[in-house]
């Protein structure tokens, strides 16, 4: 069925950079990245490279349904939702059309909607909802940034091509040669990508991640001209921090990067807020912008659709026909731990390892073909992966750019939107 096919300018959905310059080939029904792949995309494409015929069948109570009996699995799922007093729809690793279908079904069922990354989403959103920020986007960084400060992240572990695509590019709009300076601040795994092609080394300021809030506080003091008695903060000398403020104040277009997933400690939102307030302060005289990195596992895609359709961001409850936003109570972990939900619908269409959390409540899983479970869900429906098995849309880290995903092969896996739509018709 599938013939040899090479494709260029393919969009990759496997991290928030959403690179759209991949080349792929499909040879003997095996999908492969042949150019511009990174560690994440190569791995993800390899895992999904081919689909075994046996993995195409939905299972009900662990038993594969017969040929052309997708409808039977969907009917079983509908039965579970019909009997549910409070369902939870989580995972939400899908594309825009999948999310549109899920929000509609959630409204019909009075479900709670959550994404497994919502604790991280909430760290950023709570800053947005309390004080806000000044941010920029990828092409601005690529063309303007002369100073890039990475706070608590090496960027490349979660966003492998960050430096390749945004930093060490040859062409810039506003100068022949853009001398970029790189600074790392925090407990950083891999600073090698921050070495410039000409060998210029980045400035590395190591400190414990949990201490970044103190460092941000000290930087704000220095920026605003307040005197600090201490000679060092969190093991970093004041002179080093003064030097960093001097660099930021003198940069034409400084960028401070954070990746919320890497700031995973109690009250990290206060660190992010302090970072954002520093950026705001610097803009009284110069231009400096924050660059939040995120969007892996299509979490920002799920959040965008939820926010525009409902008004509230994730996690949100639609119980009793009323939207309600409580980011601390409506997380999957908390709801399952408290026994506050009685049925789980889990959607995970990009990566087979993103399986649902262990639970004893009835569960329906729309997952990648070949997904392995410790506890078999009551209904498992293998679904298509957006960008491989069907076209679709996904949002990039900056939430400005939604990129089209292309279909690269044909198979019988249904799209999430199709399954959810069919399910809703039965309710």
């Amino acid at each position, binding site marked *: 069925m599938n013939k040899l096919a090479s494709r260029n300018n393919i969009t990759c959905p496997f991290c928030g950079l959403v690179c759209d310059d991949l080349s792929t080939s499909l040879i003997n029904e095996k999908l492969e990245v042949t150019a511009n792949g990174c560690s994440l995309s190569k791995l993800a494409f390899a895992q999904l490279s081919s689909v075994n015929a046996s993995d195409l069948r939905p299972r009900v109570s662990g038993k594969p349904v017969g040929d052309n009996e997708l409808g039977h699995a969907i009917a079983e799922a509908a039965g579970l939702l019909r009997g549910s007093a409070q369902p939870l729809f989580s995972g939400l690793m899908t594309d825009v059309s999948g999310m549109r279908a899920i929000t509609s079904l959630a409204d019909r069922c009075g479900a709670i909607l959550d994404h497994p990354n919502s604790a991280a989403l909430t760290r950023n959103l709570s800053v947005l909802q309390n004080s*806000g920020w*000044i941010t920029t986007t990828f092409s601005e960084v690529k063309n303007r940034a002369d100073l890039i400060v990475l706070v608590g992240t090496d960027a490349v572990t979660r966003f492998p091509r960050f430096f390749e695509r945004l930093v060490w590019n040859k062409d810039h709009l506003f100068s022949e040669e853009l001398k970029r300076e790189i600074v790392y601040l925090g407990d950083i795994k891999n600073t090698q990508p921050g070495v410039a092609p000409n060998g210029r080394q980045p400035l590395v300021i190591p400190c414990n991640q949990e201490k970044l809030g103190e460092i941000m506080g000290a930087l704000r003091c220095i920026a605003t001209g307040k005197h600090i008695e201490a000679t060092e903060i969190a093991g970093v000398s004041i002179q080093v921090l003064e030097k960093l403020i001097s660099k930021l104040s003198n940069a*034409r277009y400084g960028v401070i990067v954070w990746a919320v997933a890497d700031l995973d400690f109690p009250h990290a939102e206060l660190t992010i807020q302090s970072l954002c307030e520093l950026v705001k302060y610097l803009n009284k005289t110069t*231009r400096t912008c924050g660059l939040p990195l995120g969007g892996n596992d299509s979490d920002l895609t799920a959040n965008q659709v939820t926010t525009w359709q409902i*008004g509230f961001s994730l996690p949100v409850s639609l119980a009793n026909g*009323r939207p309600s*936003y409580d980011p601390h109570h409506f997380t999957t972990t908390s709801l399952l731990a408290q026994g506050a939900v009685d049925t789980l619908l889990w959607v995970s269409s990009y990566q087979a390892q993103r399986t649902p959390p262990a639970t004893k409540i009835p569960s329906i899983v729309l997952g990648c073909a070949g997904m392995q479970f410790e506890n078999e869900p009551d209904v498992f429906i293998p679904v298509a992966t957006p960008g491989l098995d069907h076209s679709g849309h996904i949002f990039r880290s900056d939430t400005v750019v939604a990129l089209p995903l292309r279909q690269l092969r044909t198979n019988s896996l249904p799209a999430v939107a199709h399954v959810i739509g069919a399910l809703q018709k039965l309710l």
Partner: protein
Amino acid sequence: MLIKLVGGKVYDPANNENGVIRDIFVQDGCIVSRPHDHSRIDETYDLNGKIVMAGAIDLHTHIGGGKVNIARAMLPEDHRQDILERSNLTRSCCGRAAPSTLATGYRYTEMGYTACFEPAVLPINARQAHMEMGDTPIVDKGGYALLGNDDFFLRMMAANEDQQLINDYVAWTLHAAKCIGIKVVNPGGISAFKFNQRKLDVDEEHSYYRLTPRQILKTLTRALHDLGVPHPLHVHASNLGVPGSDDSTLITMGAAEGLPIHITHIQFHSYGTEGDYKFSSGAARIAEAINKNSNVSVDVGQIMFGQTVTASGDNMSQHRNAHHANPKKWVVMDIECDAGCGVVPFKYRDKNFVNALQWAIGLEIFLLVQDPWRIFLTTDHPNGAPFTSYPHLIKLLMDKSFRKSVLSTIHADAIKMTTLGSIEREYSLYEIAIMTRAAPAKILGLSGHGHIGVGANADIVVYHTNDDPEIMFAKPLYVFKRGELVAKDGAIVKITLGDIHIVKPEFDGAIEKRLRAYFERYHTVNLDNFKISDDELSECGNGSRMTIHPCNKRPS
């Protein structure tokens, strides 16, 4: 399906009908002429004593796209004050200052609006804008693409490229972003802010490109004129909110050099520098200029007292005004060498001098501009106030005693600084129908909208007669969208999907070769992923039908 609407009092300015009592016939979503006597009428509505108008059109309302969604995410406390519960037809969602797309569609429809135009579609963010508009039920939609701060355009201007090439780029952008018009926001200013410039007057140079806003305005007004795009350049002028902006707004009008130009939310650009507060009304000068220059049209951007949120592409001005944020939170973004945005919550207070005078200035402009065909009723939703305040605004325009009574309650010093108390004009229903129906349809080139003559789309609103226009306009008896009854007594009775309106002016495709090279060198998306195809528009728009309006290309 043949529907007869019997005996309503029709206000249809496009067809010169001012309170004419007549029947209307609807078939297949359109208004048709009186059928033969033996034709079977499937449905009849007795509209005796009711008022009938075409569906209203909001030509400037921020309903979809990145900055609107930032505003939504930012304001959970505001949403909690206006929860829309699920019904058998409508979904649960939130309203007020930054309503969800669903609430936007429901609430506009319930008020008798059947078409809404998003005025700030960043081409790089157009896909999201179309997705959000696609998730805005019932009403028709369209967007204006932002140009004039994008580096490709500014580089062409700085290199003194031919107008013809710029016209090609403008047309290419309309195709790529699937929009119906072009808007420029703070011409050159958004880009200048990225170079740390904090203000840019109409004749001041951008520090990098050495271009002035005047040059940008002249080039873009010319481009739209040459391409024959029905809607003239939609201009958010320089110096938003600045005392003294009345001067630069007058200069902005002149920069069009007689070509058609639409100046949006002009209230925010009509401030003088007189008086103890160095803040005064420029409304009289602005209105006089509008009255004299028939090439100029405006929408007002009226403010209303209360909580709202401002969402604008003008990050230079939003950053300047961020210290007014209430509650104290705000977002400013530089975006993709394309544009920018700023989101700043505002609480306009009647006891605050500046806010009180802003309110009066907007109303002065409404009342001093003589030609209702060139002034449109907007609050620049949500920047001046949420669109749900329109019925109240209409009452302020139609009822001078009500207006004067509200005026008497605002900041005492503001009362002294406005002529509003001495203006006796009251808008008639006919004039309201012009400014909310006939005129916006005309200026957008929508032949099927804004009127109820034969051949028009059957977007029809039926109001109860009421001495209080606020009550009358808040809850129409019936709203028909394409002939289907979608709202009754201010409640949704059917969910439909509106059209998306675009233009596709002719152009020389050679421009794309240059754009491709530019994108490869400087951008972070592929050119082919920047462009939205017809099929993709339909997908983004949730299956919305695309209506393409004709352009009449003029030799340049």
